[in-house]
């Protein structure tokens, strides 16, 4: 118990240091630049205390739960006894299929429930005048993230260079940008950043680092990172693809009904 308290007070001090710049920034602009009094001072102070306490608790829980879970899952799912393979089988990428399935499921499940994605999906429906359906978009993005994480874990297992995958992804995005409806480009680019939430990032990072520790011949410093990069790139591709698909579908329906009218 005492350990926890010492831990917590240490994290609390760090957190106060982290939040201080925001407080100073707001005070400076409010009082010096705009020369306005702050409305609702009491509410602001209580809110500030909540932020500091909440952030400290979150960071402490992260160390106790999310990081260990990601790492334990990675090491359990890549354990030779669990995989039922010999040392030779350990170097074969196809032995690790449970890892790919786990990564894909985590990607899908966390994305489909991601609050910021729900908000973006609703805005997309607004901008596209109903062409884009929120649920359709959410499912496409979730499938995109699931595929991204499965591919990302495959990359860690095989140790292939990250930049090749990302470069190909960029080229796909560039080509798609040329053809996608202009209204939705900014939204699609933003959706890449939106899918990786505060809870998902540490877990997924721990999964990648744990996996690169477990697979023989992999170096965590070189191979361990990159899963989040995959998860932020693929949604851009899927959102652009979905936008193109929907506008194409509407175009086809239009020409069809015009033909029928004639």
């Amino acid at each position, binding site marked *: 118990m005492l350990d926890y308290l010492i831990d917590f007070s240490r994290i609390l001090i760090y957190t106060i240091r*982290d*939040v201080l*710049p*925001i407080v*100073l*920034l*707001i005070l400076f602009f*409010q009082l010096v*630049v*705009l020369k306005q009094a*702050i409305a609702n001072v009491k509410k*602001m*102070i209580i*809110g500030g205390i*909540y*932020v*500091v*306490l*909440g*952030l400290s*608790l*979150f960071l*402490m*829980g992260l160390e106790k*739960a*999310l*990081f*260990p879970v990601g790492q334990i899952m990675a090491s359990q*799912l890549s354990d030779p006894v669990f995989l039922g393979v010999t040392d030779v089988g350990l170097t074969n990428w196809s032995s690790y299929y*449970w890892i790919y399935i786990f990564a894909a499921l*985590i990607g899908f*499940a*966390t994305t489909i*429930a991601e*609050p910021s994605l729900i908000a973006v999906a609703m*805005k997309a429906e607004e901008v596209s005048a109903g062409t884009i359906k929120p649920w359709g978009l959410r499912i496409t993005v979730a499938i995109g993230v699931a595929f991204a994480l499965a591919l990302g874990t495959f990359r860690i297992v095989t140790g292939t260079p990250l*930049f090749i995958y990302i*470069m190909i992804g960029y080229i796909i*995005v*560039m080509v798609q*940008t040329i053809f996608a409806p*202009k209204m939705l*480009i*900014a939204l699609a*680019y*933003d959706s890449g*950043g939106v899918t990786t939430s*505060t*809870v*998902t*990032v*540490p877990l997924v990072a*721990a999964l990648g680092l744990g996996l690169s520790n477990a697979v023989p011949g992999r170096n965590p*410093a*070189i191979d361990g*990172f*990159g899963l*989040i990069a995959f*998860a*932020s790139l693929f949604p851009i591709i899927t959102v652009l693809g979905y936008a193109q698909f929907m506008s194409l579908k509407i175009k086809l329906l239009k020409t069809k009904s015009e033909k029928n009218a004639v």
Partner: protein
Amino acid sequence: MRYKKFLLAILKKIWAALTDLIPIIIVVVFFQSVVIREPFPQIGEVIFGIFIVIIGLMLFIEGLEMALFPIGEVLAYSLVKKGSLSWLLIFSFALGFSTTIAEPALIAIAKEASVISSNAGLIENSNKVRDVYAMGLRLTVAFSVGLAIVIGVLRILKGWPLHYLIIGGYIMVMLMTIIAPVEIIGLAYDAGGVTTSTITVPLVTALGVGLASIIKGRSPLTDGFGLIAFASLLPMIFVMAYGLFWF
């Protein structure tokens, strides 16, 4: 009556915090009970940790909504109305910088990265060097997010097309990848996705949409977005430069 309302509000907050975690819990429990079927190590500590994460996330979001978001939005709006470009740009930079420094996901990743790098012998294996490395990483990312917001705000003001800037950014990322040390590339690419979560997104979106709705001829929906895209692109470039400096 008031007591009941208060309780309901708290339950709602806990539920909001849970929606982030429930999918993860379901998938992990499924794998543990059906696929792996082995005792889960440190189960007590993990459950305690999850409990803390939920409470922490709940308080954090509640505090943000109570204090930071309203004042941030009002500030962004009044600064745009004030019409001083230099103050607006300074504010944009400071907003991007300060919100990124406090970003929980970035704090977690920077710490993990410093441990990995010191285990790999890339940086000196001492607590002090690790702390300096992690803090430097966070400052680098925060600086680049600040710069990204400035560029994004200028883009909204001048009406530059987003995709040229993004494609230019992609090319920069590729060029940096060639010269950057191989140990930093994965982390740098990840830094792009890490920066844009809980605190940064709502404040930055408020700034962008507010700007676009005040300036004539800009649509909040097409011009207002796109700030986040810059904020996930520039950190990649700058973290690779950071790697060049360290390794």
